[in-house]
């Protein structure tokens, strides 16, 4: 892997998500702690406050002697020493209680004191924490009442520890998940990168592997593969065109050269020379026509042709082209019929005219004398469909894709007239208009359909 996991987008996302999740877990745990351990602490405080209120009442009714008696009584009931009592005179000299002196510990503003005690019950040397409140009685006497906070602290510790563990595990799992997720995405991105690099290095046939899981990565891979498919087809097209140019233009150029050379040799015979020069010009014109057709296809294929898009009445375009070709068909005693429904679409009138002209040209050329050519234009929910059907020899199914390629000709000897570009232009024009071009069997003959998409109502 060329890129560190820390730099992947997925990992960064996972990390960000983890921080957010960690924050909310911390908040939740804080509330949990407050609700459990905090509740116990508050319970204890409330008991202490209640006892102070009770003892202060005792003092008001029975004086210092009565209070001391009650405290003594209570101490006797609690030999384990889980409760802390200390009553002192105003000078903090103990009167009664289970502490031998006033604890030397800081006191909070409302009188709460935390201090350490030695366990009197004999567990030698073990210190424990007491939580107490200092109350000043009316005569300046000091009253300290507290509780052994060990149990509470233990519970608090247990809760804290489990919450901390929970938090740590959450973070660890999140981090692990992030890493795993990033590694998974990194692996798949790396697969795409690897394929891309191989393609850059020249292997255009490579495709990005898909898992068949239909997830977003698969979709990305499929889209990239579709793009590669198109690029490969275009590259193939370019290769094919170059070869076509080389092969198909070489013979007319050779003929042209031969004729000019013969004309030079025939210097004595002006009539022969003129004939040869005229033949050469005709040959050059044919070559130019081929180049023009190639340029026209390129123009349609580049999509630049969309600049000429405007609303077009396809039925009018079709009728015009049919009018143009009708006498030609008649000369061959062919029947040319037209069934045209009105259809309006946005397109290039000139290119559409030429595409249809090429189709009719082909149909008339390929159909036998006395044949039949039907042009239909129908409109439906799917959009306009333009069909040109003839009863000529047709095209074998295995060649139906091939004939759309530039320079492809069914007749390998190339003895029939034509450049092998007519249907390529039709295909390019169809593609420019987002239309689909299909070639079917007309039993017998060829049926070519251009299905235009439904115009988008803006």
């Amino acid at each position, binding site marked *: 892997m060329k890129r560190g996991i820390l730099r992947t987008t997925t990992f960064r996302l996972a990390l960000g998500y983890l921080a957010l999740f960690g924050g909310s877990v911390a908040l939740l745990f804080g509330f949990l702690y407050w609700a459990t351990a905090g509740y116990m602490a508050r319970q204890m405080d409330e008991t202490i406050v209640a006892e102070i209120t009770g003892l202060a009442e005792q003092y008001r009714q029975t004086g210092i002697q009565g209070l001391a008696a009650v405290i003594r009584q209570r101490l006797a009931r609690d030999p384990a020493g889980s409760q802390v009592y200390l009553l002192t005179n105003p000078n903090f000299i103990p009167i009664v209680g289970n502490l031998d002196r006033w604890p030397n510990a800081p006191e909070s503003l409302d009188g709460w004191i935390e201090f350490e005690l030695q366990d009197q019950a004999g567990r030698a040397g073990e210190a424990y924490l007491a939580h107490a409140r200092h109350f000043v009685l009316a005569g300046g006497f000091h009253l300290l009442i507290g509780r052994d906070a060990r149990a509470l602290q233990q519970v608090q510790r247990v809760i804290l520890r489990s919450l901390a563990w929970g938090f740590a595990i959450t973070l660890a799992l999140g981090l692990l998940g992030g890493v795993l997720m990033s590694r998974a995405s990194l692996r798949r991105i790396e697969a795409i990168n690897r394929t891309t690099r191989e393609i850059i290095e020249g292997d255009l046939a490579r495709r990005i592997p898909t898992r068949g899981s239909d997830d977003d990565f698969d979709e990305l891979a499929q889209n990239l593969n579709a793009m590669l498919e198109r690029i490969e087809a275009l590259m193939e097209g370019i290769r094919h065109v170059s070869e076509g140019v080389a092969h198909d233009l070489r013979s007319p150029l050779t003929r042209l050269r031969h004729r000019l050379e013969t004309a030079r040799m025939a210097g004595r015979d002006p009539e022969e020379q003129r004939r040869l020069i005229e033949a050469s010009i005709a040959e050059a014109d044919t070559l130019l026509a081929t180049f023009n057709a190639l340029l026209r296809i390129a123009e349609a294929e580049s999509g630049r042709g969309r600049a000429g898009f405007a609303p077009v009445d396809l039925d009018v375009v079709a009728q015009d082209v049919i009018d*143009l070709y009708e006498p030609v068909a008649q000369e061959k005693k062919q029947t040319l019929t037209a069934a045209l429904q009105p259809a309006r679409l946005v397109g290039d009138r*000139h290119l559409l005219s030429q595409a249809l002209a090429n189709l009719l040209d082909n149909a008339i050329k390929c159909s036998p004398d006395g044949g039949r050519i039907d042009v239909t234009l129908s409109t439906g929910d799917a959009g306009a469909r333009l069909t040109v059907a003839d009863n000529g020899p047709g095209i074998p199914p295995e060649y139906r894709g091939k004939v759309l390629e530039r320079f492809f000709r069914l007749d390998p000897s190339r003895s029939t007239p034509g450049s092998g570009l007519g249907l390529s232009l039709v295909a390019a024009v169809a593609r420019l208009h987002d239309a689909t071009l299909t070639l079917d069997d007309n039993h017998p003959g060829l049926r070519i359909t251009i299905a235009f998409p439904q115009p988008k109502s803006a």
Partner: protein
Amino acid sequence: MINATFPIASLAGRPAVGESKVQATPQAMRVLVIEDDPEVARYLVKGLKESGYVADHAATGTDGLVMAMGESYDVAIVDRMLPGLDGLVLIETLRKSGNRTPVLILSALGDVDQRVRGLRAGGDDYLAKPFAFTELLARLEALLRRGSGSRSETVLRVADLEMDLLAHSVRRGGRAIDLQPREFRLLEFLMRHAGHVVTRTMLLEGVWDYHFDPQTNVIDVHISRLRQKIDKGFDKALIHTVRGAGYSLRPTDSEPPAVVPAERRG
């Protein structure tokens, strides 16, 4: 008569014997050729001179503009891409200054889009390179006539052929001829260019508004149909085929077949 004033081109590019009355038009038409490619320019100037025009040449856009503004030309041939000043800018400048000289744009950029831009800039016709000289000449003559010919005529006449544009009717020698709408437009185009060569491309553009070459010679078939209706049954044909160029509508006895290449007759 529509056809008497202008020289008929000798399509072989050389004055033909017996054509002197046409070639010796006292005031030869002046053509300005603005073209930077010396080869093309030489070819144009030579061909034009041999067809009876006076041709001047400018090799840059700026020179061309100065010459077009300074002198009076009957027509200008302007290359689309020129050093100094772009052909389209040149034409726009010319038009803004009120100069109405007809302009034929020559360009290696042949697509419809470029054509529209050329005509929008003020050009009168557009011809893609490479072109046949006969095509250029035919278009040049059509442009020259456009200035003088009136568009508001309601009746066109060539010999005994008469076309009523309002009534949409055609008669020859008093006999009514029934034409399909497209045949009518084809004949109208030929009659408006009577006495001159009209190329197949000009017919496709002028009658069908198509700017592509159909693989089959569809125009020939249409003309032969029209011939059946116009010339059949009359001893003198009006529609003539001009070899290697196109067609011409004219009275048979008005001109010698000036269009047959000179070598053949010489």
